[in-house]
């Protein structure tokens, strides 16, 4: 569990993070989304204890990160966007170093090293020098380092940068597997598609503030004042569809083209069901009828245009 309580960071006269209040329950993957300069990196660096907040607190698993840093670090795995590794070590030596630095039990370390090496797919490079690894492999090694001590919380700042599509997919699967094991993950990105598919909750940040936070459904529902409905039919029923729909309450912005149409509906789900019943009762040969879910991307784009502030 991660708690960011009234978290604030000021640099000179600028507020990089403005009284952030977020609680991420155990086992969640929380995506922090926002454009460059939104305060994502600053938030993650405060959450892992690298930056001291100007005000507010960060608690990980109930432990205050700034009051008891060494105790809190046992629960935290951290990976930043642009990082480097100790090039003069072998892959297993690098992981062994961090396993010891996290004060894992001596007997558990060799087994755990093999396990994470397997998890990130670096088995054949176990005894290779790090300086000979490709960038993608080093990124995977970085992820292995972040999870070597079985952290309860993972803080990942743009972890997919530098990874090829296959490695991104592997990363998603790895994060899902970690979530299934109960790990809480806070992951930041300004690339929505990286997060949309597997985050259980997201937070949209802009100018240091959290403008929306919650599950994808909650956020899009909160944002939507109307539903966008798409429908399709067979035969030449366009005029009939148009006439019927325009007569119904809550329907607006109807557009019909060929055997397809799209309209906005302002009303509850029951109302939408009533619209469907009406069309069917009118004998229109419908082949599809459904709500078009508004994506987070739509919201993100609105955010970038300052439409949600």
């Amino acid at each position, binding site marked *: 569990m991660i708690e960011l309580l009234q978290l604030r960071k*000021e*640099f*000179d*006269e*600028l*507020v*990089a993070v*403005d009284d952030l209040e977020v609680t991420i329950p155990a086992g969640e993957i929380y995506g922090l989304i926002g*454009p*460059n*300069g*939104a*305060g*994502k*990196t*600053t938030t993650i660096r405060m959450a*892992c*204890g*690298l*930056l*001291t907040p*100007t*005000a507010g607190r960060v608690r990980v698993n109930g432990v205050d990160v700034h009051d008891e*840093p*060494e105790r809190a*670090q*046992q629960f*935290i795995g*951290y990976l*930043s966007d*642009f*990082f*480097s*590794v*100790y090039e*003069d*070590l072998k892959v297993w*030596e690098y992981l062994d*170093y*961090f396993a*010891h*630095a*996290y*004060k894992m039990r001596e007997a558990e370390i060799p087994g755990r090293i093999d396990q994470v090496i397997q998890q990130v797919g670096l088995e054949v490079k176990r005894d290779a020098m790090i300086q000979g690894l490709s960038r993608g492999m080093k990124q995977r090694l970085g992820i292995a*380092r972040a999870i070597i001590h079985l952290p309860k919380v993972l803080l990942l700042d743009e972890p997919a940068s530098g990874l090829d599509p296959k490695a991104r997919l592997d990363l998603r699967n790895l994060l899902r597997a970690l979530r299934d094991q109960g790990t809480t993950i806070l992951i930041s990105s300004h690339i929505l598609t990286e997060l949309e598919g597997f985050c259980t909750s997201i937070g949209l940040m802009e*100018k*240091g*503030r959290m403008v929306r936070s919650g599950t994808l459904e909650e956020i899009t529902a909160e944002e939507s004042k109307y539903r966008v409905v798409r429908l399709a039919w067979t035969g030449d029923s366009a005029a009939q569809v148009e006439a019927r729909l325009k007569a119904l309450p809550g329907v607006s912005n109807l557009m019909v083209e060929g055997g397809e149409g799209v309209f906005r509906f302002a009303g509850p789900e029951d109302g939408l069901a009533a619209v469907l019943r009406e069309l069917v009762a009118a004998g229109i040969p419908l082949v599809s009828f459904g709500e078009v879910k508004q994506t987070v991307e739509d919201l993100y784009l609105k955010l970038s245009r300052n439409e949600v502030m």
Partner: protein
Amino acid sequence: MEEFWRNPELVRHVRAELRPLRALTAALVVLVIAALIALSCYGAEHDNQKEYFRLFYIWLAWAQGVVLALWTISSCSQAISGERQHKTYDFLKTTRLTSEEILIGKLLGAPILGYFTVGCSLPISLIAGLLGGYSLSTLLLTYLLIVVFALVLGLASLELSMLGEKTSGGVLVLAFLLLYPMLMIGFAFMESPFPGLGAASILPAIFGLYGFQEYGRIGTPLFFGFHVSYVFLSLFLYCTFGAWFVLMLRRNLKKELEEVRLLSRGQALAFAAYINLLMYAFLDFNSKYKITPTEVGSVALVVNACILLLVGLATLTPHEQLKMWWRRRAAGQASYFSSDGLPWPWLVLTAVGAYLFMLGAALALHRSAPLAQWPWKVMALELTTVLVYIVSAVLFLQFCNLTRMKRPILKGVLYLMLYYTAAGIAAGVLGMGSDLRARQILSLLTPFPAVNWNELAVPGWVYAGLAIQVAVIAYILSAISKRLRRPALAPAHGDD
């Protein structure tokens, strides 16, 4: 003890630096160099076997000392800044390693190849030394001094590295260039009323051990009224200075660069007291280099001016901490003299402490120099003058630290240097042909004439200068409050 050697940071360096092939190569190179030294010594001295081994031992021990010192400086000065530059330091800071563990790992680990090469040649030099007729205790004391000296250099280099964002070859070259004068300055102190200060260099202690007299006879300097050896004094100075470095590193190793503050306010006061105590502990009124209490006062003033500057620099409050203190103070939750507040009250305390130390020294040394001979009034005037100028300079640096300048402290120091250079030029130009005019201008614009109140200072002009500085201090304080009062703004788009 096993835990100590299993320090992960140390193990990492051992693994990276001492891979079998590299270690074997280093050992072979050491053997070859030792053989070459042995051959060259044989060329110089081959009639007397004992003298030959002495010569061989001395050359080898010199080489070991130089290699160890330079290796330690070189590797430790890059140990932290290098990690910052390569973006690996954040991961080290987010582990459960404590500052002490990181410090030990870096101090012993970063120069591990240097220690290894010296270790490889150690049996050869010990055997040569014994065959040369030196006692085992002499040899062990020599190596103890060399190792402790190298460790202190390592700590100082780590300190510099902690304050750097990236590695700099310039710092390294500067350190190498300073090493020689730092070693030789010990002999200059030996010929002064503070002979014990010679122990700051390792050479008087080593020369004393072997009876070398190249730079004069190595005696036993006075320390708190007792005659002690340079070996003891060097070890004492290195251990105590090393302890200060450890304290500063321990406080700051896991902090972000912007949040580093070398010493707390209390520790800064203790440091000032430590230096004053050392100075008077080494004072020898009965040495052949006579000194009067007035001259002691001048020395104390110069030393305390340096201490005040150092204390001021070491206790500058980082921007954000100062801002938080300001807000807490406005809310009535913090006092003006809080440890996160402005540094000037602590500078005043340091100056008062310096005066009290002189008083204590005068009382302790009243048999050698009667109390009436001490320059009580002049010292108070001199110290007040220096204090006012330093408070003004430190507050100016604190103000610079609140601006958005890059490297604000460095730029602030440069501005101050510019001011004093301009004041010097003004005194030179306007005082051409008139010594009094030059002294008047210097007394008005700088604290330097106060160092020698009786001969250089022009009192009326000094007081006028002090009035100007007090006005400057008031102005800087108001500028600082104005800046701290500014509301924080939400950022425009930019980097995270």
